[in-house]
């Protein structure tokens, strides 16, 4: 009975945490299903369909362009050898560190009428006014598609490359012996065998695209994400914002279903135990240079040029960008990021430990529940978090009224809301990292410790925690980085006196003055490079 009591302690904690962290999602679903909202009806009658169309077109366009970029890159990287391949393998993932709004700003600056590209063209061709020539407008839906795809293609590149590496070369070789050219075998064997991974990556890209607020807002492309923001700040209608979020949840659900559906047959595909470290095709001459050029152009456009422009801003405007505001915002961001990292690794460690000691199928549910927030776009999440916190705040105030006390907006008007929102959104990252570290600890260590008289709590403290040290650090770091980068939720939830590095940078982007926040922007990019280092290291270890 003692054993059962001890289990209940962990159980109680895990289930209550799981339910608390998933509460915003349930509140959101409940709120979005509530009766009519005037604002929503008005939006429905007027612009909502345009927003939905724009969102779907944006997602479709980004997925298509990501395929065009990432599939050839993945194939070249997994199967071919060509000059610079080793460097491109990690360098081509660098764009992931670049927030889309930064790249959007940089290219707008470069390609605008007053930008260096058009100025140069006018000088070369002796054009004098806009009527003399046609030049595409980047601040459009296609422009947003290109910008977002340039940042998100690495997801597909990474996942497709890994999938190809895990397939046996024999399949491609067999297809070639049966008369297929490399090009044909790419389409008929490699792509077909990896379609599960491709769909999974595209689902991820779709979710990230839907979550994007900054780029579409900067380009004035109205999507569902901007609609949620505008409804909340324009009409102060939480119900309407929740209903729009509900529409987004539906799209999200479709993306997740597509991902699940694509995985249903994955087990039948041939997989080999290791990964291929050799190349199947050794490219020479013209082909080798074509491969190198393609990789170089993508890397140049997606990372090197924006990075150089940011560096140029930082150097040119150093005096104005290096100021106390930078440190003050960095400190605010750090404070929130550290708090969220610490809380999330504590919660995740205890929940994963419960999974481990309970060893039952249902013990996975609290972790899954707690991780649901990760799928929510930042704006949707912000609305979802506001709903229960508002209810809680109102209840506390109502209860305190008889004592003539009032906590005011202690929850929704303070940094607590942001911390809760980040916890809900990024708990899943900590959970995943800690779960994978826990799996590596042999269950016999637990049994050994218990047979030597240690309780479950002592086993956690004396055996697991020392062995999890690296996993905990990785988890904390990953959550920290995401918190530093998160923008839409912070924009919606920040109290008056709070400014994070990301909101500070975006403010300057919106005011067309990124130069003045260029050091903060560079800092965000550099922080974003850290997880790429880990991914690259783990890829190297696998091969």
């Amino acid at each position: 009975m003692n054993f059962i009591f001890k289990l209940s302690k962990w159980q109680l904690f895990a289930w209550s945490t799981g339910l608390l962290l998933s509460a915003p999602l349930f509140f959101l679903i409940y709120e979005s299903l509530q009766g009519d909202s005037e604002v929503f009806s008005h939006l429905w009658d007027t612009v909502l369909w345009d927003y939905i169309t724009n969102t779907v077109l944006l997602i479709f366009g980004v997925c298509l362009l990501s395929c065009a970029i990432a599939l050839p890159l993945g194939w070249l990287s997994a199967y071919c050898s060509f000059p610079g391949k080793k460097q491109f393998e990690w360098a081509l993932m660098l764009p992931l560190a670049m927030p889309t709004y930064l790249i959007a700003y940089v290219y707008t600056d470069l390609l605008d009428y007053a930008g260096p590209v058009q100025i140069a063209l006018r000088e070369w061709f002796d054009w004098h006014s806009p009527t003399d020539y046609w030049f595409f407008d980047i601040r459009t839906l296609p422009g947003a598609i290109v910008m977002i795809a340039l940042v998100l293609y690495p997801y597909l590149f990474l996942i497709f490359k890994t999938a190809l590496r895990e397939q046996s070369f024999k399949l491609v070789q067999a297809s070639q012996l049966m008369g297929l050219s490399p090009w044909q075998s790419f389409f008929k064997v490699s792509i077909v065998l990896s379609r599960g991974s491709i769909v999974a990556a595209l689902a991820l890209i779709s979710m990230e695209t839907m979550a994007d607020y900054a780029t579409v807002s900067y380009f004035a492309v109205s999507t569902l994400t901007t609609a949620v923001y505008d409804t909340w700040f324009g009409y102060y209608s939480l119900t309407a914002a929740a209903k729009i979020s509900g529409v987004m949840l539906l799209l999200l659900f479709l993306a997740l279903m597509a991902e699940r559906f694509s995985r249903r047959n994955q087990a039948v595909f041939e997989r080999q135990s290791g990964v291929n470290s050799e190349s199947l095709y050794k490219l020479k001459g013209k082909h080798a240079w074509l491969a190198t050029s393609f990789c170089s152009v993508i890397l140049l456009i997606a990372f090197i040029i924006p990075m150089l422009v940011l560096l140029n801003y930082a150097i040119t405007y150093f005096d104005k960008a290096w100021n106390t505001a930078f440190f003050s915002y960095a400190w605010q961001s750090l404070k929130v990021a550290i708090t969220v990292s610490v809380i999330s690794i504590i919660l995740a460690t205890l929940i994963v430990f419960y999974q481990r000691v309970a060893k039952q199928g249902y013990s996975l549910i609290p972790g899954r529940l707690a991780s649901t927030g990760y799928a929510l776009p930042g704006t949707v999440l912000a609305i979802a978090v506001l709903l229960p916190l508002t209810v809680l705040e109102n209840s506390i105030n109502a209860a305190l009224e008889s004592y003539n006390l009032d906590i005011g907006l202690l929850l929704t008007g303070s940094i607590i809301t942001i911390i809760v929102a980040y916890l809900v959104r990024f708990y899943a990252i900590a959970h995943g990292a800690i779960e994978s570290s826990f799996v590596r600890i042999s269950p016999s260590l637990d049994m050994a410790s218990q047979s030597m008289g240690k309780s479950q709590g002592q086993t956690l403290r004396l055996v697991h925690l020392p062995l999890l040290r690296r996993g905990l650090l990785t988890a904390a770091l990953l959550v920290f980085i995401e918190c530093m980068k998160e923008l839409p939720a912070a924009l919606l939830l920040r109290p008056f006196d709070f400014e994070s590095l990301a909101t500070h940078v975006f403010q300057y982007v919106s005011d067309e003055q990124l130069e003045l926040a260029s050091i903060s922007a560079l800092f965000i990019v550099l922080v974003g490079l850290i997880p790429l280092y880990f991914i690259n290291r783990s890829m190297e270890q696998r091969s």
Partner: protein
Amino acid sequence: MSRLNLQGVDYHYSGTHVLHNLDLTVGQDEIVCLLGASGCGKTTTLKAIAGLIEINEGSVFIDGKCVSDKHTFVSPEHRNIGMMFQDYALFPHLSVADNIAFGLGKISKVQKQQRVEEMLELVHLTGCAKRYPHQLSGGQQQRVAIARALAYKPSLLLLDEPFSNIDTQVRFELIADIRRIIKAQQVSAVFVSHSKEEAFAFSDTLAIMHQGKIAQQGTPEQLFAVPKTKEVAEFLGQGIYLGAEVLTATEYTTPFGVVQSQHEHTHSAIKGVVYIRPHHIELAQNTQADNPQSVSILSRRFIGSAYVYTVVIAEQEIEVAAQYGQSFEINEQVIIKIKPHTVNFFES
């Protein structure tokens, strides 16, 4: 009083019945081996004893005290059991000395150090205290594991296939060594294995498990000579079944003549089968044409001191070693003779 007693233990999960009405007794200072094929429930029995799973029916007693039944459950940390795992389960972040001291509880630092030194001496690892598990060989890691499991003087030691990761060349040397250590500490032990050679070398008593039950418990010699069931007979060594009828208390007729038993038996049925092991079979030159008791040599293998011949008897293939100097050719017809022994008769 027995050290461990399992009575009618039942365990099932998600529709799988793993242990059925299992009874097991381990005496003071006795080493019992749970022997059986993979999936027969050996490790589950060990976990039930250790308290790592909760049984559904039956009871477990340690030193006469009930530690597990329908109403009682003593958690693993309060059972005073030492356990040695297949992968040794040494804590990689702790040194050898810290691993051994892990279960020593609230005693002074000096006492802890003293006990660690005693244990290191017992397992011949003096001087390795500061090393970490990854700096030791497989055999050394195993010695640390046994030292750690014995350090806090457990009532009972459980060993889960501890020799499966050890090189066959040094395995039996190590088995003898670990047995010496356990006997020196006067601890009762339950040892799980699927290898009968390991079981014979390590244990005082064997408990053969089959489909979640103890099929038979006894000394290795008893079980080998007088198996109660066909499963026990087959598990302990290769053999063939011959149709047989009971003639007298010591005689059985078979298609290969009358087989003499060295011990008297009483059987309720007349018809059945006898289980004949290869070392009870003798091959002899066939001097008579069309002898119905002759068999053909299928293949032969030289093992140094003699040849081992494969023959088919009653539609079952068996390898029989010939006597030194005896030699037969492939396809040659030979006569089968069955030597007098303690015959294992099973009723049909």
